[in-house]
């Protein structure tokens, strides 16, 4: 199962390297968000620090949706999804492969855009970097895993690009609330680390439950 998933993820990432459609759009979007926020909030002002956690998750959520939307729609051209469904791979392998590709892409976006954000707002996070990284990884993991599942679900709809955010935001709201709160505490009020850890535990539990659910239910979603 893992072998097929890795093959699919590799195929998607190589496709992205060739076409440069999704990743470039995601990075440009992230850059624009950072630029607009840097105009709106004075980086020299201390209250701006409170905005940064929100900006980080706005970038992840909206850039993520750009990638998620394309993830399964790209398999409709020439019915390549049928090619995957008739191949000896489980539906869960297709989900896992797509998840790995989407997760890699959002990680690349974060890797490129967040240092730019911190640089522009003159923000230093070195002391609590491991906690910040943990929140980023588990928050993105949950958002992308549920997003990948819902992208598969909405891909057959004519208005899938509108349907995906409508389905995704309510389902992922506990992850997003937890991630923003944990990021806020870690970046602005590290003394309350225990509260951040409680949010992180909530996100982790949500991640595990929904990842397993998506893994089981994807078989019904991908049926032609």
């Amino acid at each position, binding site marked *: 199962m893992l072998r*097929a998933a890795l*093959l699919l993820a590799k*195929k998607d990432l*190589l*496709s992205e390297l*060739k*076409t440069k459609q999704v990743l470039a759009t995601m990075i440009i979007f992230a850059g624009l968000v950072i630029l607009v926020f840097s105009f709106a909030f004075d980086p020299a002002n201390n209250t701006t620090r409170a905005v940064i956690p929100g900006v980080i998750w706005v970038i992840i959520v909206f850039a993520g949706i750009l990638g998620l939307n394309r993830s399964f729609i790209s398999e409709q*051209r*020439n*019915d*390549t999804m*049928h*090619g*995957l*469904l*008739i*191949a*000896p*791979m*489980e539906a869960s392998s297709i989900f896992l492969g797509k998840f790995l590709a989407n997760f890699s892409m959002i990680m690349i976006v974060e890797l490129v855009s967040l240092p730019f954000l911190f640089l522009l707002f003159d923000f230093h996070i070195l002391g609590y970097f491991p906690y910040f990284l943990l929140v980023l990884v588990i928050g993105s993991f949950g958002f992308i895993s549920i997003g990948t599942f819902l992208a598969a679900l909405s891909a057959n709809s004519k208005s899938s690009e509108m349907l995906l955010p409508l389905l995704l935001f309510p389902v992922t709201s506990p992850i997003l609330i937890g991630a923003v709160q944990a990021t806020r505490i870690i970046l602005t009020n590290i003394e309350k680390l225990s509260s951040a850890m409680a949010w992180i535990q909530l996100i982790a539990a949500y991640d595990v439950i929904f990842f397993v659910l998506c893994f089981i239910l994807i078989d019904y979603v991908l*049926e*032609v």
Partner: protein
Amino acid sequence: MIEIKKLTKQADNKLILRGIDLSIKKGETVAILGPNGAGKSTLLKVLATLIKPSSGHVTINGYDLRKNQMKIKKMMGYLPHSSLLYDHYSPLENLVFFGNVYGIKNVEQKSIDLVREVGLSFFLHEPVKNFSRGMIQRIAIARAIIHEPPLLLLDEPHTGLDQGAINILNNVILSMKEKGTTTLMVTHDFKQATELCDRIIIIKNGKIVDDFRLEEKKLNLVSEKYQLQVEGVS
């Protein structure tokens, strides 16, 4: 090889397949004829594991279609209307990807050989999006047979092909037949069906209305039987 009993498929309150009973022996090349909307492609999609049947029982090479999908998928090559190819990938990249999915050994060399076999070795590294319909279909044929399947399902494979591509496709079907491959071909092309197949099945309104062997390759016989069953002309 294929045993179908009382197969039905319902979609949106419409019965597309109405109790198909069919038995196909190993090595047979069977053409499925019928008017548009008769359920031919649906039958092929059920066998290709793309659609779940509403009721009935299907076994392929002794494996139950519902319970042993992985084993069935490994032994089946499917060529539908669409190419199932990635546009921005070259023929080599497409075949290597699908070959790897099927767990083919020495997949790159095998892909190169197949591309040569379908007469497109000059375009090995060109993206498929630049190809004509005929060229795409040749690569699609190579994709369908890369794992040398013992069962080949073809959905109107000759549609829109030039004579060169038709010859290549027919050669592939005949050489696979020599190797003992069972082929099920949905087609509207009576001439190709007569030339390639040992048996003709006519489907109308989701039911098999005629099933006969082609002892002699007579196009007239196929046309007459088709007209009799589908158009009611005697």
